[in-house]
């Protein structure tokens, strides 16, 4: 697969001293959902803002869909769709009118735009309320409208910057469903930033962890987790003797007692090791009462690379943030 986005030593320095992005080199492939994960101030939103030509790089560049973000920003803008962190639809217009206006910005022929808008509206179940003013929408409805506003001109790439910020859990899961559906049906490459680890885990095929403007690790969620070397298997046996025998299991990297008759085994890959352990247990005629597998979470991965737990994102612009939350709460 070919890279649809490639950054080349992309650097952004704010005010001559704050290095938000430091020689960033990432490559995003066509058709994938790519997640950017990082703590507050890591450079996620700066990366997005540079790639969507909202700001200009201090040095370096990036190629988006074959166009240089510095030399050919207008062409870049035409080939991408953006769902910014903030709400950007006009409350005084209806949902349909908002989408119609955006389609006109991209010179989509009227007939084609109409057809596409209807398709998108039904994809995110907004067709019933399309003629209602956006001010009457609920928070979840507005976010869904934002999502498809970035898609009316049939972009090849969609940028999602914190798509579920401020939404409740149910609405968030619903948004994930829509994002997946969009990716499948419309065949777009999606670049996603989020500070919800489970969101990136649920949506992205490939993830880059960035901090201090640099990429620390890239890979699928599984790859990143297996790099941590070790799943944990907890077993409780019927007798002390059985527990002792299990402690001698040869495939374990590490075996420890974990309470009375309980054993904690650290293994390379629990999916591969578990059948062997079961074979070992039955081969040695051990009696087991309880068996639990603990997989490392993306949280563990994050902790490993950045040395800190992910903090809830402090909005860079608190005024804007409050306004968004206030409007979402309606």
């Amino acid at each position: 697969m070919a890279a649809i986005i490639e950054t080349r030593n992309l650097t952004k320095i704010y005010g001559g001293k704050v290095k938000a992005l430091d020689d960033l080199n990432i490559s995003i492939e066509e058709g994938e959902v790519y997640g950017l994960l990082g703590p507050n101030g890591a450079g996620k939103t700066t990366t997005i803002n540079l790639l969507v030509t909202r700001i200009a790089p201090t040095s370096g560049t990036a190629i988006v869909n074959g166009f240089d973000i510095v030399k050919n920003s207008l062409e870049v803008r035409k080939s991408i769709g953006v769902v910014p962190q903030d709400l950007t639809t006009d409350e005084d217009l209806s949902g349909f009118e908002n989408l119609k206006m955006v389609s006109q910005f991209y010179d989509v022929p009227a007939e084609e735009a109409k057809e596409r808008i209807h398709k998108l509206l039904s994809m995110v179940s907004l067709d019933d309320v399309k003629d209602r003013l956006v001010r009457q929408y609920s928070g979840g409805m507005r976010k869904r409208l934002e999502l498809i506003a970035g898609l009316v001109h049939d972009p090849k790439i969609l940028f999602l910057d914190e798509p579920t910020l401020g939404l409740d859990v149910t609405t968030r899961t619903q948004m994930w469903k829509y994002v997946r559906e969009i990716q499948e049906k419309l065949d777009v490459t999606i670049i996603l930033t989020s500070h919800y680890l489970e969101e990136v885990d649920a949506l992205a095929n490939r993830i880059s962890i960035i901090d201090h403007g640099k990429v620390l690790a890239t890979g699928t969620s599984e790859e990143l987790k297996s790099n941590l070397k070790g799943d944990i298997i907890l077993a409780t046996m019927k007798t002390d003797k059985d527990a002792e025998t299990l402690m001698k299991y040869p495939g374990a990297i590490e075996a420890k007692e974990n309470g009375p008759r309980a054993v904690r085994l650290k293994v390379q890959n629990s999916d591969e090791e578990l059948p062997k352990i079961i074979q070992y247990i039955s081969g040695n005629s051990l009696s087991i009462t309880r068996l639990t597998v603990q997989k490392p979470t993306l949280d563990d991965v994050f902790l490993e690379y950045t040395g800190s737990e992910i903090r809830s994102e402090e909005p860079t612009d608190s005024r804007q943030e409050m306004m968004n939350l206030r409007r979402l709460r309606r």
Partner: protein
Amino acid sequence: MSGLGPLTSRELKKWYRNPVSLLTGLIQPFFWLALFGSAFSKISAFGPTLLDGAPNYITYILGGVLTIIGLFTALFSGVNLIFDRRLGVLGRFLIAPIRRSSIVFSKIFASSARILVQVGILILAALLIPNGLEFKHGFTVLDALILIAAVMLVALIFTSIFTTLAVRITRPDTIFGVINLVNLPLLFVSYAMFPPGLMAGWLSDAAKYNPVSWSAEAIRTVVINGTLTASQMHSVGVWLGGLAILATILLLMAYFVSENEIRE
């Protein structure tokens, strides 16, 4: 590619869908004429010489009130841009492949369109009220064009200034402060309401350089005289010329500032 069409239509939709703004827009001209017409009607006692030959004060101040209506609407033309920035809508415009200037020019054109509607309502109101507007010496198509050109040029001058200010202002109260600072001076240091003969010397001298005076005087000349003499035509030409030059410079400024400086 420009985005000017969809953005201007958005502005106008927001305006005419707001029943309050529509209603106040309808009532305001009557208020203005009734209040100004009565408040300063004693001026008529000074006789037609002072009023440049106008049959009554309403006829005399029509040019002033038309200009002021254009001015006041224009002063607020940048406010929507500040709210677009605050509410996040501007972000959507800035990531679209449209010219940055179309964001600002949509406000300039939408405000001008509103002003045109207000001008029509105000002239109707002036004709309807008792002892109101009288075209003693007729009113030709050329007169109508001069009247519209004068108000439109004033509109373009002040919408350019105030939308350009809004390109970099992030707080609505800032622009409201600026509006409050300049609106009354622009109104009173001009010939919009009073004949030069009734003004203090220094005030009258200063008022000569106010574009509000140029528009008010140009409209007044055609409303009172109908068909113009050569010398009247010359004066009107100078006033409109001055307005046109100023409007061109300021529109260019609005263009370059918005293309390069607009941001969230």
